[in-house]
């Protein structure tokens, strides 16, 4: 334990005394969050999102209303009403149409919903001027929902924290161990009675402490200005964060287990991080994206972190609802740790 603690403390001192690294680690995500909050005060894009329950009508059928053929509308299929109505209530989609019950729903507080409702009716009164869609909206009855709109920044902040965890963990463990290996620090430790397990576990705990600290500071700092929505449990959010940090650190251990060159480490890190940042729903929802893209996102741990933390923060999800995400994160963590233990070399 003494050896473990000595290496843990030394690593923390090394990080916190490196002011440029510390400032960069804090500044980048804070600037990102504040920048997006300023640029997109209410939403991340201009496309209207319409949830569809009961399946999209066949082209030319009696239910194929002109509204379905308008430009700049994205139709998102849902199996049941509960999820799209919840999302409608939080302004995450703009309208829901239930073809089986001939009902449509709008959020009475949503400006997008107001515009969409006018478009919905306008298609029916156009006198068949549309090239497709002969059905009538007259048979649909309107229903409204209400709820607190979710700003884009509320939706975005779990993603940015996820990126911070991802980059902080991969670079903080992956790059550092590769650098230690290249410049001989690992060799120096190898010459002592310190075991590989003691060294690696000290690095993991040190990085866990650093990333958790930075994430807390970033969240608290931006929350004091932007007042994020927090519908769920803080303790559960902390648990998700802790598991995600461990998972990303373990991933960093895997890719750093044998590499000797920082250039190679940089290339591999780009290979890992960029797809995760693009395909994990950090900046935009994956709803409506191609199936292959959604399938690819399931391979990334950050996807499960973002899903779980958004569910807690935005929807107030409890442990049961995010248990699947937690399970996948835990399984990935164990798999990464096992791989790192099998692959790790001092030199």
């Amino acid at each position, binding site marked *: 334990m003494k050896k473990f603690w*000595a290496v843990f403390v030394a690593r923390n001192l090394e990080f916190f005394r490196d002011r440029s690294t510390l400032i960069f680690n804090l500044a980048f995500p804070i600037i990102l969050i504040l920048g997006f909050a300023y640029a997109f005060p209410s939403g991340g894009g201009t496309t209207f999102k319409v949830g569809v329950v009961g399946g999209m009508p066949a082209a030319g059928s009696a239910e194929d209303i002109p509204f379905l053929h308008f430009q700049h509308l994205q139709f998102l299929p849902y199996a049941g009403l509960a999820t799209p109505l919840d999302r409608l209530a939080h302004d995450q989609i703009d309208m829901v149409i239930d073809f089986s019950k001939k009902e449509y729903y709008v959020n009475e507080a949503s400006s997008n919903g107001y515009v969409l409702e006018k478009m919905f009716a306008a298609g029916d009164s156009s006198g068949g001027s549309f090239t497709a869609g002969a059905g009538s909206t007259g048979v649909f009855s309107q229903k409204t929902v209400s709820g607190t709109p979710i700003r884009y920044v509320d939706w975005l902040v779990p993603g940015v924290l996820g990126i911070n965890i991802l980059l902080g963990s991969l670079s903080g463990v992956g790059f550092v161990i590769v650098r230690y290996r290249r410049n001989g620090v690992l*060799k*120096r430790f190898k010459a002592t009675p310190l075991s590989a397990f003691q060294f690696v576990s000290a690095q993991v705990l040190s990085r866990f402490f650093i990333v958790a600290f930075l994430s807390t500071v970033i969240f608290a700092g931006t929350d004091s200005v932007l007042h994020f929505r927090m519908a769920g449990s803080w303790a559960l959010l902390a648990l998700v964060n802790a598991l995600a940090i461990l998972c990303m650190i373990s991933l960093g251990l895997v890719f750093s287990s044998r590499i000797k060159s920082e250039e190679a480490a940089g290339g591999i890190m780009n290979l890992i991080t960029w797809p995760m940042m693009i395909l994990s729903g950090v900046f935009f929802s994956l709803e409506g994206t191609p199936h292959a893209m959604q399938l690819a996102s399931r391979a990334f741990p950050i996807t499960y972190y973002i899903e779980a933390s958004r569910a807690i923060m935005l929807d107030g999800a409890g442990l049961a609802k995010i248990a699947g995400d937690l399970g996948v994160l835990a399984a990935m963590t164990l798999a990464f740790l096992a791989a790192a233990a099998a692959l790790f070399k001092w030199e």
Partner: protein
Amino acid sequence: MNETAGPTPILEVRDLHKAYGKVKAVDGISFAVREGSCFGILGPNGAGKTTAIEVIETIHEPDSGTILYRGEAVSRSFKENIGIQFQDTSLQEFLTVRETLELFSKLYPKPRPIGEIIAACSLEEFIDRDNRKLSGGQRQRMLLGIALANDPDLLFLDEPTTGLDPHARRNFWRLVEGIKAQGKTVILTTHYMDEAEYLCDDIIVMDHGHIIESGKPRELLLKHFGEAVIRVPEAAVPAGAAFSCPSELEDGFVSFNCANTDSSLRELVSGGVDLAGISIERRNLDDLFLKLTGSGLD
């Protein structure tokens, strides 16, 4: 050097082999190190010195061979009994010298008190300085301090004074002398022959992974060159004169390798050699290596 009569050597190496691909970095070396001695491993770049020492330190696995510490095969606890100063090493950054020493001290079950290390390595003046901001000599002293963190019986120093100015080198020698005086055993690799002659009790000379000579420095010089070399102009030696000490012709001078300088001088005078222009030189380990390998030490 292979004979181990008398007390059990603190370290014994038998038929050690280590190859990297087709390159035999260490090719069947054997030697024994007496407790309390300073043992030098000499050789040019690529001779296999560092590979040999790092295999012995258990940093690398040998391909074959035996390493005995106090008569027993090295075990996991071997690392607790040895101190190592690598040829090239880096440390965790943003730590002071004191913090670095404390870090390494905590990695051993029986560390030497930090105060003793500071005194033994003369670290007082920069003990609270960032370890990145040390001069070459100060850095080597700190690395020596780290190597002493566990109060080792056996200390490995791999080219510890390379790159240091003469003053810093001399200071470092004095520290090593102090360590020897405490009864510690030192294994030293070095390029500097004056360093080996000054510090080492026994040496081996390696080339291409082999030991090509071994013994005490003074005895090796006597064996190969005699006590001294008497050089006289070729013209000063009577034609056909023969002498008991071996001689060779070099650049217009005849060099006599003398086992005993006084008797050789008397023999030369009685043999009619004109001593005008005479020079008497003592050969060093550089000369020995040149003779053994046909090339100078890098």
